[in-house]
């Protein structure tokens, strides 16, 4: 095995457009104005929450395509995933799009898994344009992983709120300077880390070591330092996991200035009532990175960022059987297309 495990992209694969759709609760997010659209109800006029999850994907992809006036037939590959059993919402969205489709699963790290692979496909010349993204639906996820929506169980303060929404990006070669929102420079694929935690109501703590591992390895491989990035943002570690990750990285000699090391799970709801330790879900990192941070990169108000999506790879079966929670994180380095001169 070669020493370095980070992928360096040579041909400037870029994000050309994004589509970000949220649910009714996401309307209250302090970042809501960065989302293209927020649905009014959790049902979204669909027959089930799972179908509503599919609708979020449809809307988000359509929004991204519309911004570029593209048709699904202009796209060479579709890389997406979600949290529902056998990623059926993603597959059903792909059914109607008729684009070559690769279903992905890295739980809440799916957004950056997809972005790394999309960048690699474009960089390697295998595809011209790729759509990638991730989605989740709060009620569908609660139903599958936890309790019925209306069940009156008390959630501990370590629990996280699954985001309802979807975030998608069109990745391709920028035809000219203005066409690109952000350039994808590097990607570091995570290794599964399992600190032995078993509490599905404390996933931030379970995921922190995976995030710390991939961030540390990214800096080791690239020879970069934290100061080289304006922002290093993790996916959904939330208030508890993010603090742990910061401590773990400090032990490795990686320290950050204030407002440099951020977390989508802390940002999307800020301190809204009822979210306990923060947000989670594949849509969390997808919406905040594609909605909020990419607009900052496009404007040039941040130059370089490291986006690290984090995922807990558990199933309802494994935690009932007493297994600990294996976790993953993938890191993608993005830079602003605005000239640094």
């Amino acid at each position, binding site marked *: 095995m070669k020493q370095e495990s980070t992928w360096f992209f040579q041909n400037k694969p870029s994000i050309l457009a994004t589509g970000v759709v949220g649910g009714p609760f996401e309307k209250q997010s302090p970042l809501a104005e960065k989302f293209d659209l927020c649905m009014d109800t959790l049902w979204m006029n669909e*027959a*089930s*929450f*799972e179908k509503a999850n599919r609708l979020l994907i449809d809307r988000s992809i359509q929004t991204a395509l519309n911004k570029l006036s593209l048709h699904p037939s202009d796209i060479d590959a579709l890389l997406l995933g979600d949290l529902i059993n056998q990623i059926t919402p993603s597959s059903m969205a792909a059914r109607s799009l008729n684009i070559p489709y690769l279903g992905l699963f890295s739980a809440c790290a799916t957004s950056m898994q997809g972005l790394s692979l999309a960048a690699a496909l474009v960089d390697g010349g295998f595809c011209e344009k790729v759509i990638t993204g991730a989605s989740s639906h709060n009620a569908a996820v609660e*139903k599958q992983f936890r*309790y*019925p*929506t*209306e*069940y*009156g*169980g*008390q*959630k*501990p*303060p*370590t629990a996280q709120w699954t985001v309802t929404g979807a975030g998608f990006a069109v990745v391709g070669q920028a035809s000219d300077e203005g066409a690109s929102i952000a350039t994808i420079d590097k990607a570091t694929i995570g290794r599964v880390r399992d*600190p*032995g*935690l078993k509490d599905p109501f*404390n996933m931030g*703590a379970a995921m*922190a*070591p995976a995030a710390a591992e991939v961030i540390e390895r990214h800096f080791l491989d690239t020879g970069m330092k934290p100061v080289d990035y304006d922002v290093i943002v993790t996916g959904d570690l939330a*208030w*508890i*996991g993010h*603090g*742990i990750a910061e*401590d*773990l990285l400090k032990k490795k000699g990686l320290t950050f200035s204030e407002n440099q090391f951020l977390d989508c799970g802390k940002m999307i709801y800020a301190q809204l009532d*009822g979210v306990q*330790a923060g947000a989670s879900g594949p849509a969390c990192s997808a919406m905040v990175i594609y909605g909020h941070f990419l607009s900052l990169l496009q404007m040039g108000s941040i130059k370089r960022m490291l986006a690290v999506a984090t995922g807990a790879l558990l199933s309802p079966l494994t935690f009932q059987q*007493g297994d600990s929670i294996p976790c993953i994180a993938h890191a993608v380095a993005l830079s602003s297309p605005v000239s640094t001169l």
Partner: protein
Amino acid sequence: MKKKTLSQQSYQQLADAHERKRPVLMNCIKAFFVGGLICVIGQAVTVLFITFFPFTEQTAGNPSVSVMVFLSMILTGIGVYDRLGQFAGAGSAVPVTGFGNAVISAAIEHRTEGFVLGVGGNMFKLAGSVIVFGVVSAFFIATIKTLLIQWGIIG
């Protein structure tokens, strides 16, 4: 259970330092008052049955429980009981209203899978173990009591 490795143990310590603790004392106080309030309402229903209907203290229990379960189903259906549950914890879970909530919330949730496989098959997903262990423990207690009476230890 697999033993934790040394690094997992030291990580657990780090995680514990960051964890937000459950406010146990506050939760107990809330549970005490909300649970108590639910029971007071239940008692009031019992008194109503005894006063205005031909029920006695022995027979008023069953209709009172039915009324309380019915109320909890209404509250679950309009989306209030889960909020009460987050506030009150055991206070709203332990009384019979919590049992009603567990049944009806599962029934609502799985309506999308149809009446037979969805509602019928999942209604007791949460409450099923309450029934199973309730019946099993009742069986053992009854057996012990019968034996004690047979042996003349209790009257």
